[in-house]
């Protein structure tokens, strides 16, 4: 059936099939946008709400563990004792640099440079792995300092929020490595750069989410909770959670 004139999806320009580009560089679609790219944008919109909900949860409980600890309730360690900003800044920098290598990977395949593609995809995956190694080390160190998942409301929200981000990064790494393997087997041609572009969209999104998490979880100080979170508390009181 492979020699048949036009597949249904090709006739419509949908990109469910990897070989759509066999027939046309720009498969026709009503909007001119690639269907798979549109799908990824929609997924990322949805993922914004996913992380939005998790971050909202974190912000609702942010500082509660400190307050409870000061009031003599609840268990430590609390955030200001345990969060290591310089260490996490380095791993955040590593993750941000992986966005640069991702862009270079896409630029390579768009110019038909397959070796460059593999190098930069590999570099992106490696930087992602360094970030994940950093998170693994951080989680282990916290665990040894007495902060397990169930220790207090800070550890609950911290591990779940950053853990789900880590899961996203892990999926991204697996995706990138899969692309490298496909490319090594000759399955990723120049006209299929969209396959890399879509993975890139996902990767950049995960990076951007980390910028938000890093700022809200690590950078904003906890020791002066009352003044810093006044605005947030006002908003929380508004919806009955303050």
């Amino acid at each position, binding site marked *: 059936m492979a020699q048949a004139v036009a597949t249904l999806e090709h006739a419509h320009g949908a990109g469910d099939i990897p070989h759509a580009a066999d027939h046309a560089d720009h498969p026709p679609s009503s909007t001119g946008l690639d269907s798979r790219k549109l799908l990824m944008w*929609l997924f990322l919109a949805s993922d914004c709400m996913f992380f939005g909900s998790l971050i909202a949860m974190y912000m609702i409980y942010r500082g509660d563990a400190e307050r*409870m600890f000061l009031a003599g309730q609840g268990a430590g360690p609390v955030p200001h004792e345990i969060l290591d900003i310089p260490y996490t800044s380095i791993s955040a920098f590593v993750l941000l640099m992986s966005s640069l290598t991702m862009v270079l990977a896409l630029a390579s395949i768009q110019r038909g440079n397959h070796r460059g593609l593999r190098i930069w995809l590999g570099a992106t995956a490696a930087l992602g792995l360094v970030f994940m190694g950093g998170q693994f080390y951080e989680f282990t160190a916290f665990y040894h300092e007495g902060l397990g998942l169930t220790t207090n409301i800070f550890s609950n929200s911290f591990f779940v929020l950053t853990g789900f981000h880590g899961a996203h990064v892990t999926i991204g790494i697996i995706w990138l490595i899969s692309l490298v393997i496909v490319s090594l087997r000759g399955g990723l041609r120049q006209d299929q750069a969209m396959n890399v572009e879509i993975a890139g969209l996902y990767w950049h999104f995960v990076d951007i989410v980390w910028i938000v998490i890093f700022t809200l979880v690590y950078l904003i100080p906890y020791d002066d909770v009352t003044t810093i979170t006044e605005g947030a508390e006002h908003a929380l009181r508004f919806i009955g959670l303050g």
Partner: protein
Amino acid sequence: MASIAHQPQIVPQPVTTTKPATGIWSWLTTIDHKRIGLMYGISAFFFLLLGGFEALLIRAQLAQPENDLISAQRYNELFTMHGTTMIFLALMPLTSGFFNYVMPLQIGARDVAFPRLNAFSLWVFIFGAIIINISWFFNEAPNQGWYGYAPLTGTAWSPGRNVDFWMIGIQVLGVASMAASFNFVVTIFNLRAPGMKMMRLPIFTWSTLIVSIMIIFAFPAITVALLLLSFDRYAGTGFYEVAAGGDPLLWQHLFWVFGHPEVYILILPAFGIISEIIPVFSRKPLFGYSVMVYATIAIAFLGFGVWAHHMFTVGLGPTANAVFAGATMLIGIPTGVKIFNWVGTMFRGSLRFTTAMLFAVGLVSQFVIGGLSGVMHAVVPVDAQQNDTYFIIAHFHYVLFGGTVFGLLAGIYFWGPKAFGKMFDERIGKWHFWLTFVGFNLTFFPMHFLGLAGMPRRYFTYAEDSGWGPWNAVVSFGALVLGFSFLVFLYNIYKMVRHGEPAGDDPWDAATLEWAISSPPPAYNFAVIPTVTHRDQLWWDKYGDEHGHAHVQNDDVPKTAEIQREANAAHPHVHLPNPSYFPLLAAAGLGTFALGMLFMNPAITIGLLHLPVLVIVGVALLIFSVYAWAFEPAG
């Protein structure tokens, strides 16, 4: 006539003779949106009957005071499963069935953008539905109410697996809804036939688009809510536990951030269906098409800003209550606009009261009642009195039964002939309508009185001297009438399938593209992708002025239906993508994983992780299927 100067060109097609595949394997591996739509519809209809049966048991228990037919514990399970089944397993998948079947036809497409993803959605839905319902066989059916308020769902109050079945089942169903919604949005944006501009889309397709976007944004909130609950129940965190520093109100916020848009996710498809039916049977184009589109968008937008009106009695304070009350009342405006547009469409039309039209008009009248009681609840002090009483039950059944179910039934009578190629018996159909109408009002109208008299919801029985006995007897009798109406409907379906008159391509003299092709449509839908020049294309073809009432034969323009007939006569064999079993396998992997979360034995211990075998098998199957799917040539 420049726009119709180019005849749609007939793409040279390979002439192969393939008969439509039959047999169970062809259904399990199908990626045809029509077959997927039918399977969605049939399985959802089964769950509609199951949820209805649960409702009848509830009504049997409440028929008289101090009844002991059903234990309190069983009663909790019944009302929880009734709500969960109706919302997630009956109404949403029924609307999804319509989206699947009708929307690609309406935009002149041959399938959805991602046919295999579409099959995946169907199978994930079916696995999710099975997971929730097998709880009955373990005598551990969910019993915490369909919105599972914390801390009742915590391990302290719900130590059994009842909540787990619900929590994991809903999570799986969410995957199905999200995957389907991504697909529909891409399809509507990208697979429109030439000339099908956004403002020429049939209103039902607009509803599909808006509802899918709502699902994409609303479902992550319940995903997170359920994930946090899973951590609380499985890992011992305290997101909803006050003692651990958590706040049970977080659940309510996350749940209703999803839950209120969900209400519009349930009603807007029905609005879309009757927006197709009322013009056809009034022989007039829809009054105020663009306003209808904007009203739908406005409802969707406002629907995300009113969630806390489910929480007026929580004590959020006067400012929050006032803001959410105001936003809630605002929604009445676009909704009212829709009502006026339907009435405006019917005004001075030549009305044909077919069964489909009766249900459509039934929706307009019954939904108004539910809408009005909804505006009553928007007033905070009134809500404080009515909260958790039968008044609320009456309100949302007028919206979801009088609205959504009436609309879906109208849709079945309207598009059934297209899908099956046969006509329903209109006489039985009218019996069905009037029995439903009378039974519905007998069941739910007296609940207003019961609610105002103070009868609380979710109580398994009530005292003799409460005075609620007589109205409850009426309600239970009404429920029997309603149950009987569904038997009549089943008989009508049976009669249609066995002895229905042939429907022909266009039995209703309708205006949208699905009526230009045969009934049931060929696997490839359109032998030639149609070219669209007007909003009500088929009326333009037939009558030349886009107004169904002109009765001017218009012979000078190419007719969409004729082009399709001629192209079909030439036996085109449009090459369709191959069927695939990987969507089913991937869904089975996800389902097995979910079951593994429920059934912890046998288990394997890896380091700190104590993993049930089913989890490992499910994840392995999922990963394998996803890779096989990604590298499978589509055709």
